[in-house]
């Protein structure tokens, strides 16, 4: 019972360089895995391969022994919900109409449309046109859609959902993800904010230039010295979180 990827390789046709090279990792069912790394390290590509909306050049992703990329779209949608980094919409839907798209996957989701809106704190926006909401509110509505789509013992793949959220909303989303995990869902989530990753993740996959440079329990992988070598700024532990110490420029 796990999400497993073996020898994953992926290259974008126009660049030639491998976006991912030989990634093998396993995420236990019902756990939360943070995918971390610098900008352009291959996190988003990795997530798209994990949920099967892109096929790897070689290697494979399996969910409970079945290859995700080989499934037909409706079957895959019943297993795996996806939250992109930059959601987009061409129809003039309201927030509620967008969230209710999660119902079409067919499986009985963890949340109804109303409870998902409430869980993400956007009930008051339900009838507002999606285009007239802020970036953070858009991300929250797409997370709500994923909560409607996602069934217990399913898979939830999210690309930087915390990036556009204020601290209060980050805390709310952390609570939602803990609840989802407690209900048996396996979560794979790209997270730039390493403080959040260190508080939330059971496991961390650390990518750099398309290669796996760390995989395991958060406490072991997110080592301040190793992080400093990669990111070029010092890190320190505070209240259970690994936080960057950003330089203070004085005039």
């Amino acid at each position, binding site marked *: 019972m796990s999400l497993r990827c073996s020898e994953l390789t992926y290259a974008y046709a126009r660049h030639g360089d491998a976006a991912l090279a030989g990634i093998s990792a396993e995420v236990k069912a019902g756990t939360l895995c943070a995918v971390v790394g610098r900008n352009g390290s291959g996190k988003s590509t990795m997530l798209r391969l994990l949920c099967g909306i892109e096929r790897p050049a070689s290697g494979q992703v399996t969910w409970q022994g079945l290859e995700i990329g080989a499934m037909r779209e409706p079957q895959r*949608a019943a297993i795996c919900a996806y939250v992109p980094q930059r959601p*987009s919409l061409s*129809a003039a839907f309201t927030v509620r109409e*967008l969230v209710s798209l999660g119902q079409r996957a067919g499986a009985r989701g963890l949340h109804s449309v109303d409870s998902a809106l409430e869980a993400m704190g956007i009930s008051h926006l339900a009838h507002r046109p999606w285009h007239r909401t802020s970036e953070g509110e858009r991300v929250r509505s797409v997370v709500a859609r994923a909560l409607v789509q996602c069934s217990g013992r399913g898979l939830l793949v999210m690309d930087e959902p915390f990036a556009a959220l204020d601290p209060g909303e980050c805390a709310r989303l952390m609570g939602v993800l803990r609840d989802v995990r407690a209900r048996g869902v396996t979560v794979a989530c790209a997270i730039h904010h390493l403080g959040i990753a260190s508080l939330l993740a059971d496991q961390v996959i650390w990518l750099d230039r398309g290669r796996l440079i760390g995989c395991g329990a958060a406490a072991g992988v997110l080592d301040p010295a190793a992080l400093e070598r990669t990111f070029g700024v010092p890190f320190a532990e505070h209240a259970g979180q690994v936080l960057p110490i950003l330089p203070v420029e004085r005039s």
Partner: protein
Amino acid sequence: MAGERTSVPARTALLLALLGGAMWLRMAVGRDPSTGALEWVWPDPAIGALRAGAMWSAVVAGASLGLSGLLLQVLLRNPLASPFVLGLSSGAGLGATLAAWSAGAAGVAGTGGWIAALAATGAIQVLPAMAGALITLGIVLVLGMRRGVIEPVSMVLAGTVVAAICGAITLLVQYAMPPASRADAAIWFMGRVPELPDRAVLIAAIAVLAAAALWSGISARTFDAASVSDEEARSLGVRLVTLRLGMYVAAGATAATSVALCGPIAFVGFVAPHMARLLLGARHGPLVLGSVVAGALVLVVADVVRQALDLGMGRMPVGVLTALVGGPAFLLVLRSSRLAHGSVP
């Protein structure tokens, strides 16, 4: 929301009632043959048959254009898309003109066998129009994409230029026709509602419209899910390749039958889906029926207005009128939408 939801059927009924009223007007409005004065009476059977021919042609062609416009707007995620703007109408017009010219050259009327059989089913008019529409749409799709991403404004520009090229070739072919049929062909190319539609073409158009509308109605919830980005749509279980192929064929076929019936009529396919959205909201279930009804309504009303206007120049092609009204509406959407930022409203 509950109020809005219950009002969707009521608003659809209103649209249908308006269409009924417009159809009645198209039957009743006419001109006294001797004095030329405008009259509002139910016609005698002989004139009634002519008006019914025009009315049903306008209903079927308008409905086909409305559906084609909606499908193109969903397919291309572009509120500016319509069969006329993207060059489908011109492509279909070129196909139909080439077929008419070659049939004239080969003297189809006198020949028997398979050509006559094709003509009897309407296929000889409809199939070349479909081929023209689908080839044009294919070319515009390729020209309007950069690295697999649709660029709404590039696509409209590509459509405009392809339409101009198709129009030029059509005029060239018309020039090669005998002078007697040249004037007819020129008026047809401006878009006109025939009082004596070719029965086989009308039946073919009804069949294509029914099949396309049925498929669109069944697929409407998938259209909803396809309104998000490609990767999100795939994650929601949408089989994008199959869906887009269906939209491409249905949009091309309905545009083509409307052209075979009435010639390339401007902007009905653009205005109808926007009208339906204003009344019925953004969900595609109500929008499919709404666009079909709104398309029929727009073209029938335009034909009534054309009938009522007498500029002393004889019968004005209805396409002139729809372009005069639809063109400014297009510019309004172009100005107000977020296309400048590459996204759509």
